[in-house]
């Protein structure tokens, strides 16, 4: 994992002290809320329905056990004993006191974390494949380039007041686990015809009110040109992006309005002028950062199929967990273990300080002290010896963290919704919990197989409903909460936007409607066919009939 050097530490510490002075000025009445707002937003501090909310970046979703313990400490000391993991690999604290924020930030800085640019119209936390460094199919560790982008984008003086927020995601594997096609910029590393690794550059994807799948504007970009090319894209966007309408300010609208070809022409013209500049990445810096991601010293282990089968046969619940939550590791004898934060006991993505401490301990014991956060609000222990999986499972179960549902119906992504958020039109969490409850029966869950359900409490789409296989959007209809459905969305390699089914349902009828969709799928699916594949084969008609009756 990357470790701050003296320069990284100094910047973050100076930033904390700067914000401390600003908070003091606010508390002393020298700054009005209006004047203070842009300052607090630049440090990830929002004012929500009931209280301040502090959003802390987890760079590209990687945490050390020490950092997770620090997040637990912040939850316990400055909040109500829990935190909420978001769809952008961040964590949010929902009940923080303004006067305590600088202390919380200082504690986080000591563990090499911060909230800089976790809000505002600037370049946000760069996200990555949560299996980076351990995935069997990756070309290189994408976090090397995420860290390079993190540094370049931190307090970038030219790009801190963009038309709108700006999100970058990086993957280096053919299977897209980072949703690169629905980001402002998606970078996908692959090899060109000569066999050299470089980036495919995708621009203008996004969700919100006007969702788009991104367009490829460059097939292959040399890694040493990464920053000059990004700077060219950002400069074109900063100058030409719309600023007259908040809802038309994202780069996706610019790319859509002038076309990908014209956009790419403007970027190229700008790029040619700055390509041979100090932005050219020195190989020594790429190598310096690469060394941090060399990975742990793996033991020489053999795969343990017999042992796992034996343990699974003895315990059907462990069998279910293995089937849903284990993923393949690049090293023999190791596995990737997903930890679901979607249990019936808490809102999706919520985790108590006690659970965080427990997972930090488990990471130390079983996974080289490393934890990942993914964009479906779950955690990952990236490198667990297969022979320890059963012991890990038992320990997770003690913490109510052994829910076996990764990628299944009850692994629901939901925004905080009207329970917390000042933008929301409808609640998300109770709907997620009701759906979860309905599909609690494990056997049934595994009959249904892989399906993603995403819930957003308003059209800003923080729950990413456009790319859920089943998307649910809360709307306000004459003072009542209604829920509209989209079907067929995906944020993976086969990214697609879901299609609207028709009129929405009142809250009480929403979970039953999901059940009708899934029953229809069970009736018509071919063997081993995922929900998404069935939908793509048969289209909307049978599902529409299940939802609204025969036309």
């Amino acid at each position, binding site marked *: 994992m990357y470790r701050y*050097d003296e320069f990284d530490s100094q910047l973050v510490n*100076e930033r904390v002290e700067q914000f401390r002075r*600003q908070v003091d000025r606010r508390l002393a009445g020298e700054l009005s809320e209006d004047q203070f707002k842009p300052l607090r937003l*630049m440090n990830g501090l929002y004012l929500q329905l009931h209280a301040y909310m502090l959003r802390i970046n987890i760079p590209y979703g990687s945490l050390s056990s020490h950092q997770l313990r620090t997040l637990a400490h912040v939850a316990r000391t400055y909040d109500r004993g829990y935190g909420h993991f978001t769809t952008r690999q961040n964590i949010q604290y929902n009940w923080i006191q303004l006067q305590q924020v600088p202390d919380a930030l200082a504690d986080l800085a000591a563990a090499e974390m911060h909230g800089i640019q976790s809000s505002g119209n600037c370049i946000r936390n760069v996200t990555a494949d949560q299996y980076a460094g351990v995935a069997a199919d990756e070309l290189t560790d994408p976090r090397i380039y995420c860290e390079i982008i993190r540094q370049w984008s931190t307090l970038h*003086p*030219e790009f*801190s007041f963009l038309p709108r927020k700006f999100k970058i995601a990086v993957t280096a594997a053919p299977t897209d686990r980072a949703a690169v096609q629905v980001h402002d910029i998606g970078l996908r590393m692959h090899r060109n015809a000569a066999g050299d690794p470089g980036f495919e550059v995708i621009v203008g994807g996004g969700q919100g009110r006007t969702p788009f799948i991104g367009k490829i504007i460059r097939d292959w970009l040399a890694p040493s040109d990464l920053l000059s090319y990004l700077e060219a894209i950002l400069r074109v966007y900063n100058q030409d992006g719309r600023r007259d309408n908040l809802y038309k300010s994202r780069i996706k609208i610019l790319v859509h309005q002038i076309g990908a070809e014209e956009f790419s022409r403007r970027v190229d013209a700008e790029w040619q002028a700055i390509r041979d500049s100090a932005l050219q990445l020195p190989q020594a810096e790429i190598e310096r950062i690469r060394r941090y991601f060399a990975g742990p010293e793996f033991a020489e282990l053999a795969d343990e199929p017999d042992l796992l089968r034996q343990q699974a046969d003895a315990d059907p619940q462990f069998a279910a967990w293995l089937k849903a939550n284990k993923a393949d590791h690049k090293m023999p004898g190791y596995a990737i273990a997903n930890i679901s934060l979607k249990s019936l006991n808490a809102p999706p993505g919520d985790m108590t300080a006690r659970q965080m401490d427990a997972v930090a301990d488990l990471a130390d014991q079983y996974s080289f002290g490393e934890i990942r956060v993914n964009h479906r609000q779950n955690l990952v222990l990236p490198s667990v010896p297969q022979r320890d999986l059963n012991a890990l499972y038992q320990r997770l179960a003690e913490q109510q963290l052994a829910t076996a549902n990764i990628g299944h119906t009850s692994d629901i992504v939901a925004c905080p919704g009207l329970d917390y958020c000042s933008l929301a039109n409808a609640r998300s969490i109770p709907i997620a919990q009701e759906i979860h409850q309905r599909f609690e029966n494990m056997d049934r869950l595994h009959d249904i197989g892989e399906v993603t359900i995403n819930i957003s409490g308003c059209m800003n789409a923080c729950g990413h409903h456009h790319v859920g296989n089943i998307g649910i959007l809360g709307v306000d209809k004459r003072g009542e909460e209604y829920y509209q459905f989209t079907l067929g969305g995906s944020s993976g390699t086969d990214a697609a936007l879901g299609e609207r089914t028709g009129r929405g349902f009142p809250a009480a009828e929403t979970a039953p409607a999901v059940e009708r969709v899934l029953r229809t799928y069970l009736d018509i699916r071919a063997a081993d066919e995922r929900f998404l594949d069935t939908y793509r084969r048969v289209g909307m008609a049978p599902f529409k009939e299940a939802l609204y009756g025969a036309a």
Partner: protein
Amino acid sequence: MALLKDGRPQADEYTDVSAAADPAARGPVLVSLTQWREHRAALLARDERLGLRLQSDEKPASVSDDLQHFDLVALEFPTFRDGRAYSSARLLRERYGYAGELRAVGDVLLEQLHFMHRVGFNSFELDTDDAAREWQIAASDISVWYQPTGDGRRTAVENRHGLADAAPRRQAAVR
């Protein structure tokens, strides 16, 4: 309004006529892009120092061949949220080689002075009683820079690897 130039409060020698119907005035004037285009010959004939005030949607490319005529270019921030002038400033300095006074005008906040200085501004029109103190705070808060912006500050990457400056740069800090 206070004018802060090269780190010191100063009197503004220019008369801003950019919103006036007739750009004629005594002494140095600050004119709009439209005025410059309409009265170019007359303005050059005055043999006075000349300043150009650009709106945030007026790109520097449109005046890149005229820059030798200006001693001052003022870039407007209609609101602090409109960040286009940050790009304009870098283009003026780094691409078109403008070396005269580059002034930030409009909604210019203390917290942005540092960013503005990094992209090439060396003077600021501020709504404050104590511009010198504001500059002192803004200039000393942060001392690590990750991006090469042509402002003379050494980046973290250059410091880490003991690299020589990649290109000759404008003079550094204006403290």
